[in-house]
């Protein structure tokens, strides 16, 4: 796979087109090569090459001490990652999907996140947990959640959510190099998305910085992860079919949250629609709408709109699942509504 072999070549191109999945793999390979302390741990990451193939080929290259298959015991091996991190290792723990992080909540929230403050700064926990959220493949209620806001709520954690292959590489590398516990929220539908990725092994994306993924002056669409991809699609439709220039802010990081970029955009467009893959009530878009409404109180020409998954456990039937997801038409309708353009 050229992405992973490229760095070896003498005159490697500055960037290369690869999938989000390949970009994550490249980040892991580079960091595993760069730093002996880095190791990967999780269910099926080795012999099976990852349930979503992110770690394909790594066992062969790095061996089973550094690419460590685990039993099905999320609480146990997330905790093992915490302990290893406390002694200076750089564990990268893969949780097959974010739904399975629920059995390890206590280790992530009441252990990893507490270490720095609770012990007065005497110990650190440079742990990375990476896991995909998302729905859309009829995985049903227990396997289709995106509780991203739960983790962003927790002081002591950092939470990033790359929406592009380049950020997948850059943010995962930043997370691995960070001295605090970082949750990297990936996304199932994006794994196959392609994009240009810097091949420079030194490239990292800054934690706490949003990106203006598309410029516009009529309305700001704020989102993270797959919702940011959806927002870009809607922005194109708004331009082509409604002569509306939408600006898209891809948050990239949820804790810290780059409100300066968001507020600057809304101050320009005077309108905002916040989109997330999960349920909006008490979700990520609640925090966004609250902060935008406060920071841009005098700038807003319309209330901040929020779009997310319909507030039901995701049903299996395709027709029901599609109706529930924050799909193009629902985002579009919200945007037109804020712009007073609803038919």
């Amino acid at each position, binding site marked *: 796979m050229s992405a992973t072999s490229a760095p070896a070549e003498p005159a490697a191109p500055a960037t290369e087109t690869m999938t989000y999945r390949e970009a994550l793999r490249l980040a892991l390979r580079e960091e595993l090569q760069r730093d002996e302390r880095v190791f990967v741990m999780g269910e099926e990451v080795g012999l099976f090459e990852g349930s979503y193939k992110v770690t394909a080929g790594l066992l062969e290259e790095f061996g089973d001490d550094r690419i460590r298959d685990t039993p099905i015991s999320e609480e146990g091996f997330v905790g093992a990652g915490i302990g290893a991190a406390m002694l200076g290792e750089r564990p990268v723990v893969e949780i097959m999907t974010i739904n399975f992080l629920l059995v390890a909540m206590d280790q992530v929230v009441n252990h990893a996140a507490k270490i720095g403050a609770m012990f007065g700064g005497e110990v650190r926990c440079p742990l990375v947990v990476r896991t995909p959220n998302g729905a859309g493949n009829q995985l049903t209620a227990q396997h289709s959640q995106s509780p991203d806001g739960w983790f962003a709520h927790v002081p002591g954690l950092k939470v990033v959510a790359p929406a592009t292959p380049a950020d997948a590489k850059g943010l995962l590398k930043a997370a691995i190099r960070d001295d605090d516990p970082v949750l990297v929220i990936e996304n199932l539908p994006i794994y196959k998305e392609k994009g240009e990725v810097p091949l420079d092994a030194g490239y990292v994306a800054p934690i706490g910085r949003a990106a203006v993924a598309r410029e516009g002056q009529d309305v700001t669409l704020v989102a993270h992860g797959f919702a940011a991809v959806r927002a870009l699609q809607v922005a194109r439709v708004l331009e082509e079919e409604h002569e509306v220039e939408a600006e898209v802010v891809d948050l990239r990081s949820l804790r810290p949250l780059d409100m300066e970029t968001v507020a600057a955009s809304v101050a320009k467009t005077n309108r905002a629609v916040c989109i997330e893959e999960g349920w909006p*009530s008490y979700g990520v878009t609640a925090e966004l709408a609250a902060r935008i409404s406060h920071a841009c109180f005098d700038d807003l020409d319309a209330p901040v*709109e929020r*779009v997310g998954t319909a507030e*039901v456990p995701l049903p*299996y*039937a395709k027709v029901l699942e599609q*109706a*529930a997801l924050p799909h193009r038409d*629902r985002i579009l309708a919200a945007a037109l509504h804020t712009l007073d353009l609803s038919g």
Partner: protein
Amino acid sequence: MAIAAPQSQLLALYEEMLLIRVFETEAERQYKAARIGGYCHLSSGQEATCVGAVHAMQEGDILVTGYRSHGFALARGTSPEAVMAELFGRRDGCAHGRGGSMHLLDTKLGYYGGWGIVGGQLPLATGLALALVRQGRPGAVLCELGDGAVNMGSWHESLNLAALWRLPIVYLIVNNRYGMGTSVERASAEPELHKRASAYRMPGEVVDGDDLEAVLEATERLLERARAEREPAVLEAVTYRYRGHSVADAGLAYRTKEEIKEHQEHDPLLRVAARLREAGATTDDLRAVDERVESRVQAAVAFAGSSPDPDVSELATGMYAVGSAEQFARMRPGSPFGEEELTFDAGLGR
């Protein structure tokens, strides 16, 4: 020590095993034809365990399983139509198209689901057993789990509670040698899984999961003791998964074709067929079963294909009990865009 079931019963059980095999083969075909989506975990190769264990159940007993549940639902007597319609996500599915392959259920037959989180069904199955006791009901719970689930904390907490409270429950470990791509030896420090029962002073046994009558006998005995003496137990049925972990997995990255072939040589169906022949069944008898099963499965496909999709207006149906809509009526102001009609106007409860 397997008790011989009379030929007629054995023939009936054989038909059920064959029904599962043919149903699963058809399910894989329908999945590839994109009429089934999501995760789809097949039981091919595990038929003797499904049928033997479930037939040890009596009226009033309760069944709980993981997500690899087609075989258990069919063995319990849920119609192939209702199961296939659920896989198709249709209104006449046993969960009305809401649950899909992993979340089958049939409460009239005491089947309380079909759960997708590894080990997650153990605590609640234990609670179902507690409810049987509190209600003075004579039944017991049969709770299926996989070999991989034995390493979850929920296993430990559930078995301790069941033993401490003497609950009528039998934990059936379907040891098909792998949890996804991880063999039992790579996952469990004690690979003889049933021995872990001793950590709770609970009896634990292992049985050849491909021997129909052995599974039936052991499960009957343990369920009866659970009912009569409120003695919980662990039964490990050692069997083999022919197909990949799910339809999406080729199933060859972590095992060899030879290994699979070797297991198929003592296929549980062939073993029962042989026993039937010994007992005098003719080729015609068996062919008749083949044909009946074939047509039952085709009827299920036809039924599922003609069952309507759920109505989008019922997106939230069942989420909350009747009367909840009123509790939620005052939540609307400032709602996320379109949230009202998408959630709260859709008939809550039923």
